[in-house]
């Protein structure tokens, strides 16, 4: 089960509204390389993972991604909560507004609702961990594109934190991959049977 802690992993305090930024940052909430997809991917894969280390890595990174989901929701919320209708129109955010007002909805930057089709849980530990390493790199790249699009230090600062976490997660998945490969190799080694006369 999970225990909720009434604080963020990293503080989000944004002064100025900016619906244009909110419109693209929402992709890390419900887009294909976003935090929701990451969390569901790892928390689902852990059920079939091998080795204690890799199971723990999936469990704990999947949990941290939920904290990142909350951070992204907080960024989007604070960027749009005080935006006027004129600002929403100027930002080209009318379509989102028509469907969701200023609520938080899991979708990509291009408006596609969250889909589990963006993730896999294969039951093969090497396939799953390889996907996880790629997912961390895709999320890192997304954060870099979002930082390029941002001009507000209140937003860039937490985005940089989240980008760094993707780098750390990639590292941990890489270590998990090595551990799992060693484990799978060890299962292929059979002790040589002694010929009968030496038993």
């Amino acid at each position, binding site marked *: 089960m999970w225990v909720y802690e009434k604080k963020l992993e*990293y503080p989000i305090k944004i002064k100025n509204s900016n619906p244009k930024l909110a419109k693209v940052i929402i992709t890390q909430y419900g887009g294909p390389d976003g935090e929701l997809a990451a969390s569901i991917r790892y928390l689902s894969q852990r059920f079939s993972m091998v080795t204690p280390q890799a199971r723990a890595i999936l469990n704990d990174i999947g949990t941290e991604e939920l904290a990142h989901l909350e951070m992204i929701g907080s960024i989007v919320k604070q960027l749009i909560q005080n935006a006027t209708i004129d600002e929403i129109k100027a930002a080209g955010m009318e379509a989102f507004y028509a469907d969701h007002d200023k609520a938080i909805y899991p979708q990509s930057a291009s408006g596609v609702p969250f889909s589990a089709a963006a993730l896999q849980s294969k039951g093969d530990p090497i396939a799953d961990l390889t996907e996880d390493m790629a997912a961390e790199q895709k999320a890192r790249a997304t954060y870099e594109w979002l930082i390029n699009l941002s001009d507000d230090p209140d937003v860039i600062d937490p985005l940089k934190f989240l980008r760094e976490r993707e780098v750390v997660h990639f590292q941990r998945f890489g270590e998990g991959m090595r551990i799992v490969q060693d484990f799978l190799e060890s299962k292929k080694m059979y002790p040589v049977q002694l010929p009968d006369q030496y038993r």
Partner: protein
Amino acid sequence: MNRNQLLAQLTALDFMAVDLQLFLDSHPCDSEAISRYNDIVSKANILRSEYENICGPLTSYRSTSNCPWQWIDDPWPWQGSFNFKLTRDGGV
């Protein structure tokens, strides 16, 4: 320490714990990392109860409450007013 200072320090300690926990998942025999982890968790526990004395419950199912039920009190973490401003030197 005031609320924001407590929250900033607790956020920093808890983050160190999160990062070290992940490291230990793949390095379970690193005794130096384990003793650092244990030290950080003990310090964070002390700070956590200090924070809760001032600001009310921090953790669902783990914190006690006065009457009326304090868990529902604003602000929530996603609200700007909840958060402290992080500065370059790590202060608030």
